[in-house]
Structures are given as C-alpha cells and as structure tokens.
C-alpha cells in the first residue's frame, strides 16, 4: 500500500516561525521594560541611600567640629583643658643646714 505524504504549504511553517519570533521579541521587550522599571526603582533607592549617607556624614562632621564640642562642653559645665606636652621648670637650689655629703640636690617649681 503506497503511503502518500500530504504536502504542507510553505507559508504555514513561515507563519509559525514568524509568530514564534514575534512572540519572542514581544516577550523580550516586555522583560526589558520590566527590568527597566526595576533598575529605575533600585537606582532611585541607591541614590536615596547615598543621600542619607552624605547627610549623616555632614552631621557627624558638624557635631565633631571643635567649636561645637566646646559649646557643648560649656553648656554641660565640663572643662576642656588641652593637655600640655611640655612644661618649663625653674631650677631652685634647696638650701639645707646639714651638709650634702657631695650630693647635688635641686627642686623645680
């Protein structure tokens, strides 16, 4: 028995292929657009966080300024003496009634 294969017209696979490509294009476009929205929202959030970071940085700098610390110390009645690194002392010879037995004695003031 001879099997006869039905010939499929050429336009049918063309249309199917075209439709698949079109669908892929549409899907990709939609996906790109959706990603675009996501990126826009994330970059907006990133910018906001960056702004907060800058804002707090400037606040920290302002609060830690020497003038500000001094004002606060004054308001809280705290002494803010800057410690000295060096001091100069005069040498004063101590007069003793007893002999020094060859020892040199000195005091500072």
């Amino acid at each position, binding site marked *: 028995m001879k099997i006869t294969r039905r010939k499929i017209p050429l336009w049918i696979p063309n249309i199917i292929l075209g439709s698949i490509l079109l669908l892929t294009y549409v899907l990709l476009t939609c996906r790109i*657009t959706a990603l675009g929205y996501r990126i826009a929202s994330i970059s907006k959030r990133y910018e*906001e966080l960056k702004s907060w970071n800058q804002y707090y940085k400037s606040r920290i*700098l302002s609060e830690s300024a020497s003038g500000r610390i001094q004002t606060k110390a004054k308001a809280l009645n705290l002494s803010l003496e800057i410690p000295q690194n060096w001091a100069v002392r005069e040498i004063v010879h101590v007069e003793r009634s007893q002999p020094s037995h060859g020892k040199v004695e000195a005091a500072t003031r």
Partner: protein
Amino acid sequence: MWKDRSRPMGKWKPPPGNAHIQFRKRLAVLEGTILFIVLLIVAQLVNLQILQHQKYAAKADNIQFVSKEIPAQRGTIYDRNGKILALDISVKTVYADTKNIVDIDHTIHVLSKTLQIPAEKIRAKLKEPYPRIKRKVTIEEYDKLIDAKLKGLVFEDDFQRIYPKGILGSHVIGCVNVDGEGIEGTELQYNKILAGKKGIIKWLRDGRGNYLSSLGKTLSLSEQGKDIYLTIDEHIQHIVEEEAEKGWKDFSPHQISIIVMDPISGEILALVNKPAYNPNNPGAYSAEHRRNYAVTDLFEPGSIFKIVTAAAALEEKKVRINEPIHCEGGRWFVRNHYLHDTHSYGTLTFDQVIIKSSNIGTVKVAMRLGEEKFYDHVSRFGFGKKTGIDLPGEIQGIFRPLHQWSGYSITAIPIGQEVGVTCLQATRTMAVLANGGYLVTPHILKDIKTTEKIARQEPQKIGPILSSETLEVLNKTLARVVSEEGTATRAQIKGYKICGKTGTSQKFVGGRFSHSLFVGSFIGFLPLEKPRAVILVKVDEPKGAYYGGVVAAPLFREIAWRMMQYWDIPPEPNDKTIAMKLP
C-alpha cells in the same frame, strides 16, 4: 440552511452575452483601485519611514523622552591634613505638577508642615501650572514627602554646599550662592576647578509620566568637580579663632586680623578675621562680616615697619648694631616738623633704638641711607605690589613711587607712616627674616586631587634679599624686643626664643591722624633657631588699651604657645630652667 436553488450546482459558466466582459472590466477597475490604494500606503510609508524619518523620530523622542540636566557635584575642600572643610550633599528641588494633584488641601498641609513654608504661600504658588515649591530640600524632608504619598509632586536632584565646621576658616574657604557658584574665598578663586561640569540625560517616560532612567540616553555625563587641599591646618585655625574671640571680648575692637604662615614655604596655616560669618548662611551677614580684611584692607603699619628700615640700614652698612644714636630727648625738629618718641630717650645704641622702638633714632638711620637707597630696599620687600596670594580681592597697598615723595616722606615712611600695607605684606616681611632672606609667595592651595595624580603647588620665592650677616644681627635684636627690655614683654613664652616687633599707629580719619583711634599690632616668629611659624596679630580700634604690646602681643603669645604644644616642639632650656615632657 438557505441555498440558492435557482442556479444549478457545477462548474461556473460565464453569463451569456457581453456580461462577462463587463464583469472582467469591473474586476480590473477594482484590482486597479486596490493596487492604487496599496501603492499610496506604501508611498506614505516610504515618506514617513524614510523621507521624513528624522522629523518624526525627533517628534516621538520629544514625547517619549525628557531631557534633564544632571547637576555636577562640587569638589570637596580639605585642610592640609585631609579634614573636610566643605562638601556637597545630595538634596532635592520640589516642583508641583498641579494637574496631577488629587487632594489640594491635604497636599498644601503636608508641604507646609514638612518644608516649613506658610500654607498661604504654597496655595499662591499652586495657582501656576508647574511651580517650584522649594529648593535644597534635605533628604529628611524628602523622605517625609515620599512617605506621605502625595500625587503631583516632582523631585529633581540637586546639591547643597555644607560647611561642617561653621564659622571656622570662613574667610579662607569662602561660600557659594544658591546656584552653587563660588562667591567668596577659595570657593570663588577655584570655582572652575571645584564646580565640575553639568551633564544632560534623556530619560524615557512612560504613559503615567514615570521616568525609566535605565532606558534613557545619556547625552553628556556630568563631571564631578575636583577636590582641593588647602594649606590651612584646621587645629591651628581653631586655636587662632579662639584667641581672636578672647581678644574681641577683651578689647571690643572694630576688627581683628590674625595670620599664621609657614615662613619657608609661604603656606598660610591659619587666617582669621573678626567679625566673621557662617558660610552655611552667608545671606544673614553684612558685607562687613564677609570681608577678608587681611587681604583686602590696608593699614598704616607703624613701628613694625622699622624692621624694614633696620634691615636696609644694616644691609647697606650705614649703621653698626651697637652704634650710639642720639635720640634728642624724645622730640626732634626735622624737615619742618616735630618728630616724637613715646619716651624721652637720650643716646641709644642702634639695637636699643629697635628694641625701644624709637622713632627719632630710626629716622636718623634712614636719613643716612638716603631716599633712593631706602626706596630700593622697601621695594625689594614687595611693598606696593600684590603678594600674589590665591585669594580674591587682594590689594597692592600704598607705597608711592619715589618721585611722589615729599620732603617729609623720609621722616615718615621709615617709621611706618605714609605707607599702607596689608596684613599679608607685613607677614611676608617677617617671613623674610625667618627663612634666610627669601621673599615667599603666600598661598592657600596645597594640592588639587585628580584621578590621575595629585598636582602639588610648588612654593615660589625670590631672593635672598638680605644677607645672612644682616639677618643674624637683626634677628638677635628682634629677639630682645620680646624680652624684659623690649616693648613686647607680653609676647614672651618661657623656653621659646621669639623674634618680634610691636606696632601702634594712629588711624587716618577725615584727613588727619586720630588721637582716639589706633591700630595695635604685633608680628613675630618662633622658634628663633628653626622658625616654624610667622604670626601677625592686628587689632583695629581696640577699646581700653591700644599699644601693640598690650592688645596684640598677648594674643600672639597664647597662639604661639598652643601651636608649640600642638606641634610638640620642646622648649629650649637654659642654665636656670629645664624642659619636661609631660605624660
């Protein structure tokens, strides 16, 4: 189902007669019409898509894309140790798209409460189609507005200049206007470097007006401004401002200027003027507060100018340091007028003339030099010319050319009259004695930070303009000024050798010298052996006292002492003292 039974089923046959010809004709007309329409459509498509493509693409772009300016972040200003003095932070500008506002009363209420603007003012603004509600809205305020979920508000990016140290160094750093352009100080001087470049971006906008930044086109990127490093030391600046404040309280003067300079490089370590202003809110202060007096104003230097006279006379060998000079008992008639000293001195050696600050002795020595030689030496110190500091508004001072001198000039200029100098010029003069005789250019900019490399500012100097012999003799004499025998006893610091000179001058008001308005000044450097800093203190119109040794020298002492502690420079002990390092 209805069927046409009148026509028999089977092969189609043309109607009899010429009806089929007529039918073919009609078919041809129909086919022709369809073809014509198709051709028209194709032609129009060619016209739209090819011939007029650019025009319509641009139209579509205008609808879909919105051009926005990208503001450029201004460069940060640091002190010499990398501490931030000025920086830009992100802020927003709030606009209202009035067509999209849903609940106008609620919107006004929230905006008024959050942005601290009266409700009536916002209501008036909302009568316009796209009003700007407020510029420089902080991130805190912005967040509150976002949380309120108001419809019809549009936010645009911007930057706000912040000066975290407030008033500190305001005259050096300067300030910017509301558009972020420098208007004072370094901000103005280096505006081009700091400002950067604005960019332009085209953002895709959807039907609801949302911006899709990721699908946009960047036409030009914004370029951030370059960061700069100043020569200022924040800590020294703070010390100087604190001491200036004390001087302000003690003497209630019209104005105080203090400069601290590195004598070797010419780097300005601190520069203070009082009254000062807060650059975060410059509009709240008068122009007087914003004025950088140390650079833009001159004063009659008085006795501090005797340093120049003494240097010239010693350099020309017209006088020996121990040569006796008769000081005429404090009153001398010369060139048709009387010259006075504050005390009646008989004969003083030349070093004593400087130490006691005798006007008569100084003028006698200057007259030995002669006008031309004296003029030449004063010119070498750069008087009458700008120092070249990189701050706006510098003036050259007054030092008239020789042909404009009167017969009296040689008796006035050597003691600091008939000349007008800026604080910078005076500071630079003292630096010449401290750095081995070189005339340095004072400057504020240390580095410009770029992505490629750090551009270093090389110090510029002229000279030497004085010989080492002159410097040695003169510095020893000036060290005695800051001793019990000199006029600057209040500038002494135990353990540190200081060279200095006091100055007191009457102010020239209404065409004559005032007997109640004075300028007291002191200029000095330390330590003598290895000078680290030149400090000038000028107190303009002090109340209660006016001598430089009384109003300016104590401020010098406090500043110098604190600086030595900060730099950890040990005192120099002598046979009666010892220096102790404290834990």
